[in-house]
C-alpha cells in the first residue's frame, strides 16, 4: 500500500476530494486548519476570519494504481494553485 500526503489550500479542498473520489481512493482523512510556508508563499491562521482560510492536510492510504490516476488529476491543481504531494510506503497494521 501507499500513503499519499497532500497539503493544499482549504479553497482547493473540494476539487482535491473530487479528484480522490474519481480516482477510486478507498478513503481519505482531512486535517485542518494547517498553516505553513512554501518556497515563496506563507499561510497563517490570520485569514481565518475572511473565509480565505489556511491549508488542509489530506492523508490517503491507497494502492499504487490510484496514485497513477491522481498524478493526472491532482498535479495540475497543485501546479496552478500551489500545494505539495508526497508518496511513501505504508503497510496495514
Amino acid at each position, binding site marked *: 500500500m501507499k500513503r499519499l500526503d497532500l497539503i493544499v489550500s482549504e479553497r482547493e479542498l473540494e476539487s482535491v476530494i473530487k479528484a480522490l473520489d474519481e480516482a477510486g481512493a478507498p478513503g481519505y482523512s482531512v486535517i485542518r486548519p494547517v498553516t505553513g510556508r512554501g518556497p515563496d508563499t506563507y499561510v497563517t491562521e*490570520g485569514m481565518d476570519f*475572511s*473565509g480565505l482560510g489556511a491549508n488542509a492536510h489530506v492523508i490517503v492510504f491507497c494502492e499504487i494504481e490510484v496514485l497513477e490516476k491522481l498524478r493526472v488529476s491532482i498535479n495540475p491543481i497543485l501546479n*496552478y494553485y500551489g500545494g505539495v504531494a508526497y508518496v511513501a510506503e505504508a503497510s496495514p497494521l
Partner: protein
Amino acid sequence: MITATATALDAGLVLANVLSPKVLFFFLGAIAVLLNADLEIPAPLPKLFSLYLLMAVGFRGGMALAKDGLGGQVIITIAVSVLMAAVIPLICFCILRLRFDVFNAAAISATYGSISAVTFIAAESFLQAQNISYDGFMVAPLALMESPAIIVGLVLVRLGSRQARPGSDGMNWRKVLHESMLNGYVYLIAGSLVIGFIASIYSPAGVEKMEPFVYKFFYGVLCFFLLDMGIVAAQRFKDLKKAGAFLIFFAILMPMFNALIGGLVARALGLGYGNALLFIILCSSASYIAVPTAMRMTVPEANPRYYISSALGLTFPFNHTIGIPLYMGLVYKLIPASI
C-alpha cells in the same frame, strides 16, 4: 474661515474616533505585533466574531428597512452603489497598470471596488457616537457590491491578458458567479437582512427577543474583532512594505480619491450626512472577504500578498483611524446642511 472651522472639526473628529474603544483595541492588536507580544486569537474565534457581526449588521439593516420602507432614495442609492462597485475597479486598474501586470492590477482593482463590512460597521458606530442619523437600507449594498467588483476584475483579466490561460478554457463564469454571489459571508449578510426584514413584519415578538443579541452585545464583539484585525493588519503591513512604495501610496491615496468620488455622488443623490458617510465608506473601503477568495480561485497568477496586504495592511487601518473622521469632514463640506 469656514475651512478653518472644518479643519478644526476634523481634528476633533479624528480624536473622538481614534480614542474610541474600538480603534484603541485595534491599536492594541497592532502594537502587540510590533512588540512581538505573544497575543493570539486562534482560529476559529475570529470567524465566530465575523459571522456574528455580519449576522447582526444584516439583521439590524433588515429591521431598519422594514421600518423605513423601500421608497424614496432607497432603490436609486442601492443601484448607484452597485454601479460604483463596477466603476471604481476601472479607475484603479488604469493606475495600477503603471506598475503591475494585468493579473495583479485586476485583482487589486476588484478588491477596491468591493467593500469592507467591518469598516462600514465602524462608520455606523461613529455616526451613533456623533448622534448623526442614517438609514438602515445602506446595509443592502454590503451584500451587493462584491459581485460586480469581482466580475469587472475578471473581465479586465480577460481583456488584458493576451495568451490563453490554463484554467480559462471555456472559463466557468458559472463558477465565478457562484463564488461571488454565494460566498458564505455575502450570503449570510444578505440572508440576515432578509430575515430581519421579514421577522420585523411578521414576528415582532421574535425580533424583540433578538434585540439584546444584535444591539447590546455588538460593540464589544466589534472591539474583540478589531483586536484581532489589529494583529492581522500589522502582520500584513510587514508584507506590504516588501511590496514597495507604489502600493503603499496607492493603499492610502486611492481610498481618499474614491471617497471624494463617493462624496460627489452622494451629493448628487441628495443623501443626508449619515447616509453620505456610509456611501463614501462603501466606495473607499476595500474587500478582504469575498473578493480575495474569488481572486485566488480565478486569478491565481496574481499574488495574494499584493491584494490582501494592501486592503488589510493599510487601507483598513487608515479608514478605521483617520479615514472615517476625514470623510465626515468631507461630508460636512460637500453636503448642504439642510438635508
